[in-house]
Structures are given as C-alpha cells and as structure tokens.
C-alpha cells in the first residue's frame, strides 16, 4: 500500500492525530506500506531545520518511525532543478509560487536541507552496514549499551538540549532518557515548561523522568549512578543573576569526579519573560495580611512607647526587627516589605530625635533602616522556602501513601471485582475522576462490567488493549474520546484497560500525577496477573485432585467389576456346556447369574452418579418433593432382599415438603438401606424415619445389627473406604462417599452413629427452606 506524506496531520476526530500513527496500525495489521517523508519533518532535525528556515516545523515524525523502516530510498534533486520544477508550477499552484520562493524555497534553505538529508541517509546506511556485520559475525560481541541522560531544568532553551541529546543517542546507538530535578522553588510557569518538555520527549519516544530533590547535582549523580547511566548531557548556561556565588551545575558535576561522560551543550539562556516574580509558595497578597501587618506594627509601636521611658531607642530597634521577622515568616514577602516600611516609619517618627517628625538628625539611623529591610527580605525568603518544602513533602507523602495503600489493598484482592472496587475507592477520589476497569473475557474481547460508569467507549478500550498503548483524550490516538485509556501492562501480557475521566483534565496533565497514575496501573496489572495465575494454579490443583480420584476409582473398579463378571461368565459357560444338568441346578445357576448382574447394576449406577457429580460438579435438579414418595421409591428399588428383614417406616403424615433432587436423595436412601442389608443378618430390624426439627428435616436409617466397625466413623464416608477390608461383600466403598457428597450438595450433613442398645444409625439433617404456597381449596362439596 502506498501512503503519501507520512508527516501529515489528520483532521480532528480521526483515530490518530498524525498519519504515521495510521501507518503503524497498517503495519501491525501485516500490510506493507510505502510512504514518503521530507527531511524537514524528521523530529530530531526539526530544530536545526527551524534554525535554517526561520519558522517552526509543526508536522514532525518521531525518528523511531524512520528507524523502523525496512528500506530507505533517497530521492535527491539538485536545488536548481527543484526551483525549476517550482517555477514550472509542478509543486504549488501559480499564485503560491512567489510566496514559497520567498520563504521556504530559498536556494540556501534547499542546499542546507539537502545536506541534512544526505547525512541522515548516510547514517542510516552506516547502521545498516553495522547490522549486517553483526548478523554475519560468528562471535557476536554485544557492546555494553550506552545510556544517555539529558538533564533539563525548567527553561525554554532546554528543548534544544533534548533534541541534541536524542540525536547524539541515536548516533551512539544509546538509550536516551530525559531527567528533570523537581525543586521546591519551581513556580506555575516552570511547571508548565516541564510539562512541555515532557510532551516533547514523549513525542520522540524518549523516556521522561522527573524526580524531586533539594540539590540538583546530587540528585542527578545519585540517580545516574544507581541506574547505569554512562553519559550526561548538560546545558552550559550562564550564572544566575541572583546567585553569583554558586557554581554552574556542569562544574559541580564535573568536580564530583563520578566517572560519567559529560556532554555540554552551550545553550543560550533566555531571559525570563517579564511579569511579577511570583513564587507559587508565596501566600497571596491580601488586604487581610496587610491589615494584620499594620496592626502588628502599631502594637509594637505602643509597646515600644511604654518601654521608651526605660530603654534607649537603639534597643527598641530589636523589638521592631522581631515584629518584621514574625510577619515575614508567616505572611510572605509583600507583608514583610510593608512591615519593614511601617516599622522604619514608626521608629523614625516616635523614637528618633527629633521626635514626632520624619526628619532624621543622625545619618547612622539610615543604616538601621537598611538592616530592617534586609532582615525582612531574608526572613520572608526563608519562610517561603520552608512553606514550599513542607508542601512538597506533604504532596510526596500523599502520593507515597496512595501508592502504598493501593499496593496494600491490591495484595489482599483475590477477585477481579475486588480490584475494581479498589480502583474506584482509591484512584477515583485521588484524581477526582470517574474510573472504570475494563477486563477482557476468555476470547480477548473487552466487556464492561456492571459497576462501571457507562462513560467508557469499548472500541477505544479495545484498541488500547490490543496495542498495549495509551489512547483517548490527551494522547495521539483517538484523542476525540471522552476519557483517557491506560493499558494494564503486566509482565506476560496486557490484563485490561483503565478508563479514567477526571472532572478537571489539568489534574492528570501534571507530570507527577501522570506517573502516579501509571504506578497505580502497573500495580493493578500485577494484581490482575497474580489473580490470573492463582486461578490457573487452582484449576490445575482441582484437575490433579480429579485425576487422583479417577485413578483410585479405576483401580477399585477394575477389581470390583471383575469379580462379578468372572462369576457371570463362569456360570453362563457352565449353563452352556453342561447339557445334562438337572432342572434345579440349571435354575440355580441362572438365578446366580441374575443375582450377580443385579449387584453389578447397582455398582454401575453408583459409579455413574459419582462420575456425574465429579465431572459436572453437582448439578441439582431441585424440586419440592414429599419425603415418603422418595422413601417408597427407594424401597421399591432395593427389591426382594428386603423381605428377609423387618422393615418399618416412621414417617408422620404431615411432613413438610423438601426441596431436593429426588433421584439423588433416592440414591442416598437406597445406599443406606443397601448397606444395612449387606452388613446385617436376616431378621434384623431396619427403621427409616423422619421428622421436622426446627428449621431442619431430620431423617435416619437405623438397624439393630452388629453396628459400625470400631474407630472413627467419619472415615467411612471417604471414597474407597469399606468397613471391613477385603470382605466377600461386593462393593467399591463408594456408597457412603456418594451419600455424603449428595447430602452436602443439598446443604445438609450426614453422620454415622452407634444406635442404642446396638446397631448402626445414619442420620441426615437437611435444611427445610420455605415450601411454596398451596392455595386452599375454595369449598368442600
């Protein structure tokens, strides 16, 4: 596919702000793209180009896009030929030609641009050669990667520094990052500057980092040391007018002898724009603070007036100085100056001869006045700094507390819903925003959950999820969306998307907040991944448990199925071959076959039930049943062996209905009665009974046979456990285990007890629930 003009800016409302974003989409969809790009649109050279042609190039393409190109073809045209084409009307429509000639298409410009282009392509070819050598070399030696750190401060010239650093990094094939030390003295305008720098860095895909620190040089060195930075790029600025005694940053870093390479870029320091020198830590000038100052000075004058009788006037200066210091510390610079001014006036008027006049007889008092003013300025400066530091410490603390809280809360979360709740509980108030956690389903499609705000756009979220890149408002992709979408980037894969829609967008433009948000996102991503793998581990465990059960089932079944099968086969063969059997023998053999088959049938039924309960979990088909029907049905299944025992049922006529799966409860009763038949001699009494006790149905099967084997009766309910080992009584030891899981699935319990005076009693407790209403019949006829 051919896409012309890579640097084009799309019309608003498009998916990407710039055309190169669309091209990246095409590439990731597996479509090959040919495209064209003029050299002046390359981000890393844009500042040079701006310097040459005198206007700012707005349409830029990150160098990484250029670098990623499979092949670069250079289309060269000598400037004269290009100008000839321009004159021939092949570039612009005729009316535009003259203007273009005046501005961009000057011969000097074209020659310079041609040179830049040639150099850029030469660099590219050079790196191709290097890559080729590396790929062909048998012993590939990976050079230690260089890491370049561009140190910027809040200032206009710093953009050049970043561009230069990025170019250098490219040439060195080094990793590049931009570093800013955030200081308490930065004001609103500085922060705006830093934000612009961060945007610039993001635009050319260079990492931007802002770290708080009191001493710039120390912070830079410390960070560089701990993060394997090899080279620093520093601006070589002029000394600050108000700090002539301080060394330049570059000098201090050079003197630290850290072993780092230092690249100095001589950046012209531009003067700050005029305007009030307002620190954002400065309390605003208000009538109230000035009033308080005036009152304080008046009070001081009164006190001093009282003391004037005992002390000389020079001693009273200290009193005024104290007032000025207190006012300066608390109320800021303007109030300090006002206090100094008032103090000087009061002092002069009341206490310096000639008294009650502003005239000064002794010039040494001028020195006193000057000192008071200096005290006021210094105190206000110190006060402002203290306040700023306290505030920045507070903000940092708040951030750290938030991250810690999010991390702590997330560490306890075991379900995605809990994570969503944490999101809304902590992140939403922090940014004063609405947030939504959008998680993928098993097919990697995102679906919004019920508790989200409904403001999120799933298609944007899906894009974010698929490309693992931020999108939405404030980004280059789908910037028309109403919210910002951040991917949960976890080590293995993206785990979902956070949609955030703050009430005030400036609140997340701030660099720190952006980082905080990203920190939260990666915490959430890790938590989501942890949950995912916990689920996988859980599934594996369940699977293994099932596997173990299946194995013991198989071994038990292979024994217990073979025994009756051998008997059946043997009996049938005897019937088949022995022709001269008497009629009674024949009948006996045949009924033995039938008896064995019936036993097999019961065993297979149990096995099938166990398999059903194991494979599908227990899926109950619950309906409201009367217990005596289930008992009756169970007894009719047990069959003729029952006639050898004295069976009694003890079921009151007014038993309430039970909400149970009838065929499973029938199985429980059949198994219990079967057990009683198996383990008791003929003539034993068997009683099946039930009654409602409180909120439960109590149901029992009791016999007065030999009772339970000694020991813990609980383990009778484990699978493949039989009361007597290797007895001739057939069975797999599944009956009671099945009973327990069926009763358990109904929310009930089953226990084996010793009956008095002897025998065994199996007790079942089932919750009664609230049976459905039955309409009363209107009338009896």
């Amino acid at each position, binding site marked *: 596919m051919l896409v012309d003009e890579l640097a084009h800016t799309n019309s608003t409302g498009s998916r990407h702000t710039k055309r190169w974003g669309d091209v990246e989409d095409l590439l990731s969809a597996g479509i090959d793209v040919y495209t064209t790009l003029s050299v002046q649109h390359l981000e890393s050279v844009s500042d040079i180009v701006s310097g040459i042609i005198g206007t700012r190039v707005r349409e830029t393409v990150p160098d990484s896009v250029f670098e990623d190109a499979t092949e670069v073809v250079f289309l060269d045209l000598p400037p004269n030929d290009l100008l000839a084409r321009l004159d021939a009307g092949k570039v612009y429509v005729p009316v535009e030609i003259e203007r273009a000639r005046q501005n961009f298409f000057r011969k000097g410009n074209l020659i310079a641009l041609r040179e830049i282009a040639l150099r850029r392509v030469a660099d590219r070819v050079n790196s191709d050669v290097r890559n080729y050598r590396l790929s062909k070399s048998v012993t590939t030696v990976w050079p230690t990667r260089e890491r370049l750190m561009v140190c910027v401060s809040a200032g206009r010239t710093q953009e050049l520094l970043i561009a230069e650093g990025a170019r250098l990094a490219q040439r060195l094939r080094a990793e590049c990052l931009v570093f800013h030390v955030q200081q308490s003295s930065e004001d609103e305008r500085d922060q705006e500057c830093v934000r612009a720098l961060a945007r610039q860095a993001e635009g050319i895909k260079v990492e931007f980092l802002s770290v708080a620190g009191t001493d710039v040089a120390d912070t830079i060195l410390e960070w560089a040391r701990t993060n394997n930075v090899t080279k620093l790029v520093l601006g070589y600025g002029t000394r600050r007018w108000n700090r002539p005694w301080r060394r330049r940053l570059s000098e201090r870093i050079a003197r630290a002898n850290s072993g780092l390479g230092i690249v100095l870029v001589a950046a012209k320091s531009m003067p700050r724009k005029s305007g009030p020198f307002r620190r954002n830590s400065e309390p605003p000038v208000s009538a109230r603070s000035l009033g308080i100052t005036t009152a304080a000075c008046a009070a001081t004058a009164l006190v001093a007036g009282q003391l004037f009788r005992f002390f000389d006037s020079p001693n009273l200066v200290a009193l005024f100085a104290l007032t000025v210091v207190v006012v300066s510390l608390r109320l800021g610079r303007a109030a300090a100056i006002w206090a100094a001014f008032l103090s000087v006036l009061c002092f002069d008027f009341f206490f310096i001869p000639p008294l009650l006049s502003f005239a000064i007889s002794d010039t040494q008092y001028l020195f006193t006045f000057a000192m008071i003013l200096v005290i006021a300025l210094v105190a206000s400066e110190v006060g402002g700094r203290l306040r700023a530091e306290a505030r920045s410490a507070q903000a940092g603390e708040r951030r750290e507390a938030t991250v810690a809280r999010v991390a702590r809360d997330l560490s306890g979360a075991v379900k995605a819903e809990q994570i969503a709740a944490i999101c809304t509980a902590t992140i939403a108030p922090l940014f004063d925003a609405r947030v939504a956690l959008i998680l993928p389903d098993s097919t990697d499609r995102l679906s919004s959950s019920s508790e989200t705000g409904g403001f999120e756009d799933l298609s944007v979220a899906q894009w974010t999820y698929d490309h693992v890149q931020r999108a939405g408002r404030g980004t280059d992709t789908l910037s028309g969306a109403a919210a910002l979408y951040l991917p949960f980037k976890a080590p293995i894969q993206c785990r979902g998307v956070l949609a955030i829609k703050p009430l005030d967008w400036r609140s997340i433009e701030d660099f720190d907040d952006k980082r905080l948000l990203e920190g939260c996102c990666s915490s959430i991503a890790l938590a989501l991944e942890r949950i995912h793998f916990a689920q996988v581990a859980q599934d594996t465990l369940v699977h293994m448990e099932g596997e173990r059960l299946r194995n013991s089932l198989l071994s038990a079944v292979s024994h217990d199925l073979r025994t009756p099968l051998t008997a059946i086969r043997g009996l049938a063969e005897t019937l088949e071959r022995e022709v001269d059997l008497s009629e009674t023998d024949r009948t006996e053999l045949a009924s033995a076959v*039938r008896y064995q*088959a019936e036993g097999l*049938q019961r065993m297979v*039924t149990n096995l*099938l039930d166990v398999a059903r309960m194991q494979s599908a979990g227990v899926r109950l*088909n619950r*309906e*409201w*049943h*009367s217990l*005596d*029907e*289930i*008992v*009756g*049905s169970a*007894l009719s299944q047990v069959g003729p062996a029952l006639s050898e025992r004295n069976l009694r*049922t003890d*079921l009151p*006529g007014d038993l309430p*209905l039970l909400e149970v799966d*009838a*065929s499973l409860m*029938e199985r429980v009763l059949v198994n219990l009665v079967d057990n009683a038949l198996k383990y008791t001699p003929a003539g034993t009494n068997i009683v099946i009974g039930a009654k409602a006790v409180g909120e439960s149905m109590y149901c029992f099967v009791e016999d007065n046979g030999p009772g339970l084997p000694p020991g813990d009766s609980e383990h009778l309910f484990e699978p493949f456990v039989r009361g007597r080992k290797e007895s001739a009584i057939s069975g797999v030891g599944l009956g009671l285990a099945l009973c327990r899981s069926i009763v358990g699935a109904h929310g009930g319990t089953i226990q084996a007890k010793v009956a008095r005076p002897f025998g065994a009693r199996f007790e079942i407790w089932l919750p009664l629930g609230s*049976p*459905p209403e*039955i309409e009363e*019949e209107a009338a*009896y*006829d």
Partner: protein
Amino acid sequence: MTKPRILIVEDEANIRRFVRMALEKEGMSVFEAQTVDQARLDVATRKPNLAIIDLGLPDGDGKALIREVRSWSMVPVLVLSAREQESEKVEALDAGADDYLVKPFGVPELLARVRAQLRRARVVSNAGAASSRVRFGAVTVDLATYEVRRGDEAVHLTPCEFRLLTALIRGNGKVLTHKQLLLEVWGPRYSDRPHYTRVYMAQLRQKLEESPSQPKHLMTELQVGYRLSGLTVEAEATRGGPSSADVDVPRHS
C-alpha cells in the same frame, strides 16, 4: 381368540431376542423393527396391540416417532430408556407414551407392564360398556355418584382430590406425568407447580392407602409422575357376575 400382537422397536439384537422370547412364551406374536423408518411402516401395516419403543434409535428420535404415531393411532406405547435419558422419558410420556422401563430391566417387570397396558387398552376400547364403578384394593369408587369407599367406610375427598383420583382412574395404569395431571386437574395456570400434585397425592395416599409410604396402588414414578395400578372395573349390577377387565389377556401358567 387372536393373539395380542406386539411390535418391538430396538436396535440392540440381544435385547430384542430376550424380549421376543419372553413375550412369545406368554402367547403373544412379536414383530421386530430396528429403525424409525421400519417402525413407522410396521405400526401402520401390522396393526400391533402394543409397541415397545427404545428412545435411542440409530436413525432418529424415539420421541418424534411416538408423537407421529400418536397423531393417527391409539396403540399403547411402552418406552425403553437408558438412565442417562431420564429427562427424555418425561418428554416421551408427554408426547403420548403410556409407560416406561429403565434399562437394565428384568423380564418379570417387563411382562407385568405389557400385561397392564394390554388390559388397559381393552378397558378403554370397551369404555361404553363399562360400569361407572371401579375398584382397586379395598377402595371402590363410583364415578357417577362421586362416592368413594375404603372397605365399608365412606371416605371424604375434596374436589381436587377427587379430580386427581378420576384422572388416575382414567389413565388406568398409564403413567401420567406431573404436567399432564396439573393440566387436567388444576388447569394450564398451574402447569409449572409440580408440588401441587405431590401434596395432593400424599393426601390421597393418607386417605386410601394402607401404608402410605409403601403404596400398593397410587404408585410414584419418581421425578416423572404417578400411576394407578391394580384397577378393576366392576360389571353393572344388572348384568350379574363380576367381570374383570383382564380376563381376556392370555396368561402363562
């Protein structure tokens, strides 16, 4: 007297064989079909008195076959179902089958069910001549006068209980599903409330059965429905002499 004609539709040869042997020994003539297509043809041409149909047939659905046969024939249908087809057997009964057997089943049980269905068919076909008085166990019911007696005692039934009992009597050994009973006794509004039949059956049993938890006549087909067994129709007093409906059914002695 002609032999009862039984059609067995089953794809498993061994099952066909032992069912055939058992039924022929009872003096019945047996036809075999292995597929739905063949069964459809045989029901139409051989005019059986009873069809035994397996639900899992190789070329189609046994339920669909029953529904189709029901649209043009009243032949009693006995369904064979495997245990994993439990819900299907209710569907088959709702589609018009009369009774069911769960595999594996024994020969005595099969013969009992076959005999009951043949007897029932005879009663139904003689409906015009039958008396309004029926009897099961010690209980006699006069459908014309709404009189119910257990032994010598008169039993009082509520209207719903009586309607339920008459529905079961009309079924006469046929398995009636909960849905069918609810529709007939309480009406369509109640068709999803099976607990009604359970409660009323319990009441009926308390009033009519000797041992309600081990009933002999008002039989429970668990999770399916109910069936009345052991029903006999008393001859009109004017004709004289008891004539039970099952006298014509041949019996192996």
